[in-house]
């Protein structure tokens, strides 16, 4: 009987864990879309008229001002996040991926250099380890004679 209780308890705990992890990925999608409704409308207008920022400011300054539209473009690269992680560590841990994450999240040349340095350190450690390994082991390729 005791075992049954333990199994039930474990099952309940396991289910609670799964539910909580899944909850972390929940997004109020409708709310986010609602918040972007005006930008959506602007996007449709721009696409339909093949307009530029200059065209809009010439014809509808109010719209630009109301939406506080920036004149700077964005570039869709690797989806980024404000990770707040030192670039050196990104480079060291993730290698090239770390460098790119650092590049995208910081847009700061000093931080990029730190990430590159991290990447170089990681590579140097791997290569050095391999060379030491190879220098310390005599390799014998003895093939059996027919």
């Amino acid at each position, binding site marked *: 009987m005791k075992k049954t209780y333990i199994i039930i308890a474990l099952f309940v705990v396991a289910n609670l*864990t799964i539910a909580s992890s899944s909850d972390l*990925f929940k997004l109020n999608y409708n709310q986010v879309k609602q918040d972007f409704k005006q930008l959506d409308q602007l*996007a449709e207008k721009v696409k339909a008229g093949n307009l*530029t920022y200059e065209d809009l400011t010439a014809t509808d300054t109010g719209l630009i001002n109301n939406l506080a*539209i920036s004149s700077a*473009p964005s570039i869709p690269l690797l989806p980024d*996040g404000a990770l707040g992680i030192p670039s050196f560590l990104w480079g060291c841990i993730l290698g090239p991926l770390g460098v*790119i994450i650092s590049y995208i999240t910081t847009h700061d040349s000093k931080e990029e250099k730190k990430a590159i340095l991290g990447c170089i350190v990681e590579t140097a450690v791997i290569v050095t380890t*391999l060379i030491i390994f190879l220098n310390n082991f005599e390799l014998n390729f003895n093939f059996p004679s027919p």
Partner: protein
Amino acid sequence: MNIKKLLLLIVITTCLTPVSAQEHFRMRADYTIKGKSPDGTQHLTIGTVYYDKNIKKVVFDVRFPQKETWVQQDTLLYKIKNGKLIRKSKSLDISDFTIFSMALNGKLSDYGLKDSQFVLTNVEKDGENIISTWEPPAAYKNFMGKVMIMKNNDNITGVIFFNKDNIIISRQFFRKYKMINGMAFPTEIIIEKIINGEKFYEITTYENIKVDDYQNEDKYDFKIPQS
């Protein structure tokens, strides 16, 4: 180091290099980026992106806010307007690490973490969703936290970044997948950044996606004009 050792080094290095078995080599897509910044401004960018993994140029044909072309090649980022090079700035060689490259090479589903030093520590199943947790190496846990990934039908649907105190700092959602020439690609990506406790969103949508497009050669291999 003798020849045998050198050969072994080459073999080991080759084995460690990720092998791409995918057949897709290029893609184009119309994109729209909408976002809100902490300073209160909003941004809208509309354009078309071209990427060929052999040419290794990421070409952004921007139509809004201004008509201009951005080309990322090797370690340089070029900005071209009215056929003239107006800016050339140093950058990093990012072409292999864009969402386009990851999708073409079949690496988007694990967000590239499989090739990193992050360690897979937990996998959970919730209905059709599989949630995996990736921990940074022990030596770095004072600086960074775990990353969680949610997959559905082998397509990544969400990524969560935590800080060292196990607090969420960013979430990304990959939605509305479409199969194009056998390649799955998310046509809507929502990024949620949490800055000083406040959430800021950016939505990128992709339309008119073409995979292995044999046209627009001049776009994929955009020739940088002289300044």
